[in-house]
């Protein structure tokens, strides 16, 4: 479904991704772990189409389509969803209005009819239950005055509403207490299906106790330096990243 090959990217004069290659099959859950500053969030931003980053080499295809040719809106329409590490506040715009606009915009671009008010509300209800999102939060302005945990739950709520084909979770566990972590993970897990893939970006292993990945990759110095099964996460938790990063360095030298 998603194929990233030899991706190089920079912001300003700083090169952040230096030949990243990664492939993700339909229905698979991949975790990307790595030390701070390794380029994890950059990868998430580039997948979603943030224009601050310049891709200098390499390619990304999504279902055979050149993703780099699409702008952020088109990627969302194609089914890519990014759960932001720092969800943005939009004062005066209610969560519900925001979502209905988003949903209908996507449907319009897919040449589908807008969702009826009734269906929309039913869907809101179902999805909100999934992440135990308070009714009040649905009516409040997008992310405004939300706690850290509420923001992350709101991200997963939006994901459930928009039903993406590929969901990229950027450090969704950061700033969550254990209860919120459980709720968010439950939301994600119940969305796992044979035709939906997940790219879970995290610094800590604990999220992967809840969202069990099929594959784990280590991102360091702008490249995937090591890949393995779900047990790799535990190994990383125990030994840190240095052994892989060092081994990689030795290998390169």
């Amino acid at each position: 479904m998603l194929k990233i090959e030899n991706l190089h990217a920079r912001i300003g004069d700083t090169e952040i991704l230096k030949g990243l290659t990664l492939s993700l099959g339909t229905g698979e859950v991949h975790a990307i772990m790595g030390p701070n500053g390794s380029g994890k969030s950059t990868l998430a931003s580039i997948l979603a189409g943030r224009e601050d980053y310049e891709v200098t080499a390499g390619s990304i295809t999504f279902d055979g389509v050149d993703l780099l040719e699409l702008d952020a809106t088109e990627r969302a329409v194609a089914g890519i969803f990014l759960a932001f590490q720092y969800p943005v506040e939009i004062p005066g715009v209610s969560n519900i209005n925001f979502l209905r606009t988003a949903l209908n915009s996507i449907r319009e671009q897919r040449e589908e009819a807008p969702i009826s008010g009734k269906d929309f509300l039913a869907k809101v209800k179902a999805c909100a239950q999934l992440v135990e999102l308070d009714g009040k939060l649905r009516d409040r302005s997008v992310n405004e005055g939300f706690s850290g945990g509420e923001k992350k739950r709101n991200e997963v709520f939006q994901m459930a509403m928009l039903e993406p084909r590929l969901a990229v979770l950027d450090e969704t566990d950061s700033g969550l207490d254990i209860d919120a972590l459980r709720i968010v993970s439950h939301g994600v897990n119940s969305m796992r299906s044979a035709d939906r893939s997940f790219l879970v970006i995290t610094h800590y292993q604990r999220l992967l106790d809840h969202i069990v990945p099929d594959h784990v990759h280590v991102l360091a110095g702008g490249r995937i330096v090591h890949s393995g099964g779900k047990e790799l996460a535990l190994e990383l938790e125990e030994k840190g990243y240095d052994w892989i990063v060092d081994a990689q360095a030795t290998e390169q030298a």
Partner: protein
Amino acid sequence: MSAAEENPLLDEFTRKEYEFGFTTDIDADTLAPGLNEEVIRIISKKKNEPEWMLNWRLEAFSVWQTMEEPEWAHVQYKKPDYQAISYYSAPKSKAPLGSLDEVDPELRATMDKLGISMEEQKRLSGVAVDFVMDSVSVATSFKDKLAELGIIFCSMSEAIQEHPELVKQHLGTVVPVKDNFFSALNAAVFTDGSFCYIPKGARCPMELSTYFRINEAGTGQFERTLVVAEAGSYVSYLEGCTAPQRDENQLHAAVVELIAKDDAEIKYSTVQNWYPGDAEGKGGVFNFVTKRGICEARAKISWTQVETGSAVTWKYPSCILKGDGSVGEFYSVAVTNNAQQADTGTKMIHLGANTHSTIISKGISAGNSQNSYRGLVQIGPRARNARNFSQCDSLLMTDTSGAHTFPYIETKNPTAHVEHEATTSRIGEDQIFYCLQRGLTEEQAIGLIVNGYAKEVLNKLPMEFAVEARKLLAISLEGSVG
């Protein structure tokens, strides 16, 4: 979704270009350009006015001649040549209009294009409409129904003929002839406008609405609106404005006077979408308007405005809070794009005790435009326990536009409490990206963010207007993020 939201007529507003830039090909009776006593006599005569009205105009004209055009606003424009303007242009009609059916079909078509077809309006929302084209009131709907309640809603010319005592008693009492350069000019040459009288204790059952339109080339529009709400009455009044696209600047210098007697309430809402000129600043309407209301004891006047049009706007809808316990409100969204300039705000003059006022102003600057808030809050020595709260926010869309705030706060009573806050911020790239990631287009994203920003004000508009205004905001700002 409300019925109004699905109203196909209002979809007119979703078009990208300045949609109202058509001219109506109607045989118009237009006076040669120029201004002198003779012209004023002709206007007065054409309108078959009584002598007191003519004298009032002539006096205004002599005052105007001694006055100078104000220069203190934060706007730059080439002053109009007042001798190059035609001061009277009326659609020719053979006889006074008896009913809507007698209205010129071309004119009806114009109204339809504006989305204010009276039939539709009647059917959909029960809004009574007075339609002023160039200078003359063309038709007023729902008159009979209102008459049952003793409410008078008619054109100003008609009011001068039919209700001279009411007009004489109130005209110029809130905005005196000498008030300023433009109000003096208006007093001398105004050709029509709306008159509205709500008798004691009456609650006007429907929104009253006026649509203003400048049509003839080289004409000015000088309408005069007078709303009198007797003790304990209530009225909500709407005003919409459009003008065709023309290369030269057109002048609009209106005067609006509101009188709210004891315990009365007047809500006055404006959606101003005069032609703003093209992207280079050619053409567009000069909107130099004086709007002021006076509140007697416990009365309330609420101004709500959505300003998206005009090349230059100079406008300060104000409240004189004369009576104890009276309330003034001003809610404004002003959008400037391309080369537009706006200097707008309000004056809250607290004279009585326990008077309260609220000012919420949201400016949005895009393109190369300049957008200024200018407001005065004045607490007089007798205004014990007066309260004011002002919030003036500016949103900047480009680094080539300007956002300015010039509040004047004058307090002469120690029991008063006055609070003013202002912030300036930029439309956030991260906000837009967040929306894009959720599948919104950039235009939708900007529309959504801007409407969210202006929500406090838009919520004050009557329903039908709010929908229109939201769309207008989005259209005005399309493709404007720097």
